[in-house]
């Protein structure tokens, strides 16, 4: 009796999870399979998931004619620079706030933390853009990169600070006795110890910058050659040719999706840890 009960409950659980799994995977499958359909098929019928005939045409066309080679490069450049830059700024800031002693430390930290509550999201894009204009970085992706890298991600800062807190202070002390300065303790001792954390930061920043839409759009409005993938794809949708460029939109979306999915499948542990760590440890 008890074991039948358990069997029924397990079957039901699997049934629900599998149904949700199928529903959730549908949009992803639709995009990737759709990118192999011919444009005629895409524009005239939409009643099947699998293509009638597999064609690679859409990718060739997107890559050669629709500037997607350039968009992809821009995305790689932007995401790559932000990832590398953030690794340094986040770990340095976390280290300084955790181990440093300097005037106004607590006040500055409070300032950073309270930004979580005055964050208006997309509403501050305009003034950020106006400030970037003052520095002459409003027409390239460098504007986005500098804002993201120097602008400090509060979540990452929290995670780094609590991670460094868990490293024994005795290590720093003995390095200090050996004549290490504050900076060389970071460079030689703390930074190498942060490897698992760096993977988390890198992956979160990659996801954020690769997927970002509004900020890069604003910074490349007048300079279409610098558009990253997401902005380029959306640009197609907004253009007059939107109705006839389904093939390019689907191929473009797949080019944007597939690297992200691969990175996720390889490093999913870090994704899930990272996305939740900030909120829990914070």
């Amino acid at each position, binding site marked *: 009796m008890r074991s039948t009960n358990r069997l029924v409950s397990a079957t039901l659980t699997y049934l629900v999870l599998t149904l949700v799994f199928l529903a959730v995977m549908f949009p992803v499958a639709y995009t990737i399979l759709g990118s192999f359909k011919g444009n005629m098929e895409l524009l005239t019928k939409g009643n099947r998931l699998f293509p009638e005939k597999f064609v690679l045409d859409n990718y060739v066309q997107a890559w050669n004619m629709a500037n997607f080679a350039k968009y992809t490069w821009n995305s790689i450049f932007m995401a790559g620079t932000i990832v590398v830059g953030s690794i340094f700024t986040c770990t340095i800031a976390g280290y300084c706030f955790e181990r440093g*002693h*300097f005037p106004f430390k607590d006040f500055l930290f409070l300032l950073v933390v309270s930004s979580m509550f005055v964050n*208006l999201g997309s*509403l501050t894009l305009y003034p950020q853009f106006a400030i970037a204009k003052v520095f002459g970085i409003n027409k390239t992706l460098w504007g986005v990169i500098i804002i993201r890298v120097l602008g*400090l991600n509060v979540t990452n800062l929290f995670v780094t600070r609590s991670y460094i807190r868990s490293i024994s202070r005795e290590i720093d002390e003995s390095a200090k006795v050996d004549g290490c300065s504050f900076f060389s303790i970071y460079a030689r001792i703390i930074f190498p110890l942060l490897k698992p954390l760096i993977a988390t930061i890198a992956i979160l920043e990659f996801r954020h910058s690769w*997927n970002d*839409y509004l900020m890069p759009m604003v910074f490349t409005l007048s300079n279409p050659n610098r558009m990253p993938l997401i902005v380029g794809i959306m640009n197609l949708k907004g253009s007059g040719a939107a109705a006839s460029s389904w093939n390019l939109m689907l191929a473009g979306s797949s080019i944007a999706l597939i690297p992200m999915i691969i990175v996720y499948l390889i490093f999913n542990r870090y994704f899930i840890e990272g996305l939740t760590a900030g909120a829990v440890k914070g």
Partner: protein
Amino acid sequence: MTKKKRITGDSIQAMLMLAPMMIGFIVFTYVPIVLILRYAMYQSNGFREQWIGFENFIRLFTRDTQYWRFVLNTLVLSFGKLLVEIPLALLLAVLMNKGLKATGFYRVTLFLPAIISTAITGLIFSLMFAAFNGIVNGMLMRIGLIAKPVNWFGRQATAMMVLGLASVWNNYGINMIFFLMALQSVPKELYECADIDGITPWKKFLYITMPMIGPTFQAVLLMAIVGSLKVADLILASTNGQPSGGTEVVMTYVFKYFFGYDGRTIEVGYASSMAVVTGILLAIVSFVYIRSTNKLGHSTE
């Protein structure tokens, strides 16, 4: 012994290391807020500006009925989709917490939509639900559920539904993981005791699980509410506010005034006053929420 705040070589190094980030942070996080407060007092198209005092706010509160209509849209969309998203996330987390064999597989795959760009999500859903050649209409017709194509984006109600669906798809994963983590931290002994007493599963959920995950639930719900009130790119990437403002939300409306997007004239001053009011509304929602759910958050203490 108190630590004297002495300036040593190390503290100078610390300040120098931190300086670029602090400057960048203040310049790109706090200065924009100050600028918004200032712009709000001006009439400006981005190039010429003129001081007009509180005129922008008077316009917003007395003449701009559109803004308030879009506030309502935002609330309907956010709370409508959270009514589906939060229970779904909780249900999946509970099912995965049963310790069945394939849980790892489902945890990885069901979380996948959460890593996908919100803009791409909007695009994919707008293609799937396209009236003429969209796959949803195509499949529904093939199995005979509908006789002719539904124009999903032609009516406010159905357009909102599709947006809600897209948003749930994109966001339930993160909530699910939070709930799962909270569930895993509930001591197993509590359930074992309940089993001995012969408590039904539903009562176990109500009287053990819910109180134990109360604080997480409160925090997750707050993040979900604030996050969905701030949604902009999903709408810009899919309906762009159509049909005739039926799916326009506050964030996209203000965005269009700031950048002259979608054929609107640039009105930086007016957009800023709306940004200020929107920020205050967000703060009020968070405050009311925290006050009214305090019981939930402290139930374990």
